[in-house]
């Protein structure tokens, strides 16, 4: 079957770009988390009050936890180190952000809806399941494996 052969040949070719696509997604995510992370550290008390007003329990502790995970996330995503481990808590942060802040505003980013945190959640879930790709410390240190 011609179409099937063509599709499989094409797949073999395009598979070479897997690690590039994962690298670009990692860098975009790291860039996206950079500003929110810094803002949380700079305005720690305001963030704590804000978390409290959203009904998040143990607001000071949760602020510390979130701000730490986000800034560590930026670093680890850039280097591709412990990628699977850091993406899972970041996914949880995105989920909480959607539920507490964005969900009532609908989908669209224009209304502060859950569009962008959803995209982040999806990128993170792809990285969690696929790993960081070959251009990463994970591959350098732990090997490709199977």
């Amino acid at each position, binding site marked *: 079957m011609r179409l*099937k052969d063509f599709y499989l040949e094409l*797949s073999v070719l395009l598979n070479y770009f897997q690690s590039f*696509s994962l690298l*670009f997604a990692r860098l975009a995510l790291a860039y996206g988390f950079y500003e929110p992370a810094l803002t949380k550290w700079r305005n720690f008390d305001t963030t704590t009050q804000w978390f409290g007003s959203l009904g998040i329990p143990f607001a000071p502790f949760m602020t510390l936890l979130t701000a730490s995970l986000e800034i560590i996330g930026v670093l680890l995503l850039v280097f591709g180190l412990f990628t699977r481990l850091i993406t899972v808590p970041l996914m949880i942060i995105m989920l909480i952000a959607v539920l507490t802040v964005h969900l009532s505003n609908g989908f669209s980013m224009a209304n502060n809806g859950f569009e*962008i945190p959803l995209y982040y959640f999806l990128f993170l879930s792809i990285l969690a*399941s*696929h790993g960081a790709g070959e251009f990463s410390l*994970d591959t350098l*240190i732990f090997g490709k494996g199977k």
Partner: protein
Amino acid sequence: MLAKIHTLSKNILQNFQSLSLLLARLVVAYGFLEPALNKWKDINSVATWFGSMGIPFPTLNAYMAASTEILGVLLLTIGLFTRLISIPLMVIMVVAIMTVHLTHGFSAGDNGFEIPLYYMLFLFIFTAHGAGKFSLDYLLFEKKTQ
């Protein structure tokens, strides 16, 4: 110890590869649906708009973009020719960034290139990884060769 944690998280999380690709496909398809429908509803003003941005053959390109987008919605949803359709959709995103969004900077709040960039990254991931197992691509082309 760290290597063990790495391997363990990898063994668990890589089971979710197809699920993460499915969710991302559905969300990207949803994202293209409204722009695609809007283009079809008023293709003439799209052509005028394209012309005003200096895109050559604006009428032809309006039809091309509108067709590719609506086809993309369909194919991404069912996961058919996923790698193939992702490529022209990426081109559309690049053109959108260059002609509309680049001058507004990064942030989506200022109509910057943030969201089209995320779409481009998702599409690049689809091109490189395919649609995953929950797709017609897998059923038609890949299943027996695995």
